[in-house]
């Protein structure tokens, strides 16, 4: 029994890395024969990665980027939830502000970068506020939409058992839309990473995005590759981290992770 379980595990792991592994090997073979400056070999990229992001590079560039990301994302989630709960309870206000909110939601968040640079100047405040702005909108819309369409059965339970106030919000209403909120949180995290990199590429002298684009402009292609790998790794890694935290929450809300659909 144990062996069978192990074999299944093993093969899933195999499936997971098979294709990337084939691609990396193919790239290595091609890059070492092509000798193009744009396409350094895997070894060169790995060395550049360690040099760029290890030691001082980590403190100077990775930490500020991740700090901006965390500050913007977390404040956006909190603000989005609070405003979403408030709006879901004020019907008239909600109907009145929804056109503006949907307009802002449809506005590609990266297009806000020039505006925020001009107003907030170049620096961490700019990245953080765009991220927070975009995440707030995204979480707010999903919270409002989820709460407005909340199961009428739960509304009855709240009335009959006179469950009110924070208990109603935190123990009944928000958990009932947890799958949707968690999905929105994941999408918002991806968006945050994108905005972080874009805002650094447009208007910053430090940070992961800035280093990546600056090295491209100064013909340091292995550093550029190190930056691209970093961006990809961040995207995959933070998403995996999120899933790890999401799965037990979903299980607790009584809904299997597979049952969720994309919004």
């Amino acid at each position, binding site marked *: 029994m144990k062996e069978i379980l192990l074999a299944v595990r093993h093969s899933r792991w195999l499936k997971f890395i098979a*294709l990337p592994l084939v691609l990396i090997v193919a790239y290595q073979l091609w890059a070492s024969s092509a000798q193009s400056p744009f396409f350094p070999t895997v070894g060169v990229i790995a060395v550049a990665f360690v040099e760029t992001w290890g030691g001082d590079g980590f403190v100077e560039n990775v930490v500020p980027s991740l700090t901006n990301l965390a500050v913007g994302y977390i404040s956006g989630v909190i603000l989005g939830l609070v405003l979403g709960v408030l709006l879901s309870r004020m019907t008239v206000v909600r109907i009145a502000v929804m056109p503006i909110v*949907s307009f802002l939601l449809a506005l590609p968040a990266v*297009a806000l970068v020039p505006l925020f640079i001009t107003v907030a100047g170049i620096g961490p405040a700019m990245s953080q506020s765009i991220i927070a702005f975009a995440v707030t909108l995204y979480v707010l819309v999903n919270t409002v939409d989820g709460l407005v369409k909340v199961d009428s059965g739960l509304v009855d339970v709240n009335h009959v058992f006179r469950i009110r106030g924070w208990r109603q919000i935190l123990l009944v209403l928000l958990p009932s839309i947890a799958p949707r909120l968690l999905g929105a949180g994941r999408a918002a995290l991806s968006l945050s990473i994108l905005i972080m990199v874009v805002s650094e590429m*447009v208007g910053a002298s430090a940070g992961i995005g800035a280093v990546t684009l600056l090295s491209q402009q100064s013909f340091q292609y292995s550093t550029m590759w190190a930056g691209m790998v970093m961006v990809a790794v961040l995207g995959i890694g933070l998403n995996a981290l999120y899933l790890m935290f999401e799965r037990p929450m979903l299980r607790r809300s009584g809904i299997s992770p597979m049952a969720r659909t994309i919004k």
Partner: protein
Amino acid sequence: MQVQNQRSLTSNRWVRLGISLGGVLAFFILWEGASRTGWLRPDVAPSFMDTAAELGSLLPQSDFQAAVRDTLSAWLFGFAVTAALAIPIGLLFGANPWAWKWFHSTFEAVRPIPPIVLLPLAILVMGSGRSFTTVMIGQGVFWIILLQVTYGSTVIAPVALDTATVFRVGPWRRYLIFRLPSAAPIIATGLRIAAGISLAVEIMSELIGGVPGVGQLLISAQAGNDLPLIYALTGFTGLLGLIVAILFRGLERFALKNHGPKGGAE
């Protein structure tokens, strides 16, 4: 007392529309008022009137129109090429569970890679032309469409497939009559999401990659510190996004039409 058997005034469609219009109007008035009283400083935001006037003067300008054309055509081209690749591949995976099992986890893993990742290299290799924007958009939304299409074509109820088997429906019909219609709403949702992201990727390529379009105008307005122009262009980009969102919502509704009130996914 909680009165639930009385339909409240806000459930009337016209009342809602009125409140919405009032909300937009109030927003504009508040904005203008905040500027006039000096509470909203001009180095943070121009007044509503100034922004509207700026947008109004932009619309007839030929270089602005050219930029809009550039943005829209590059977006549409990139999106169409990506969708044309991803949809058939997704349908193939959907019909072939074995292959899907092999690639599923890899695709899921690749999806969270930010759509900007290839940008520095792609500019280098391809310059800032149509092929560049297409590759960027493709990298950004290919996985999303592919996963949605595959997911959509695997959600078909086993009963429906059994029905097809019992009535000895051939493989082609099986696909056309049974799988595709049940997949259509989910595919449409994927396309809507992908269309929005494609537009964002296009704007992003213009901001950073120097591709001609509205994004490039935004960058030069930022360089000139021209706040009214920045607000007008950002607002215009929002309108573009809104139009794209509304169009694809329409497509989604159309795809859902034959599924009854509760058809499809969410």
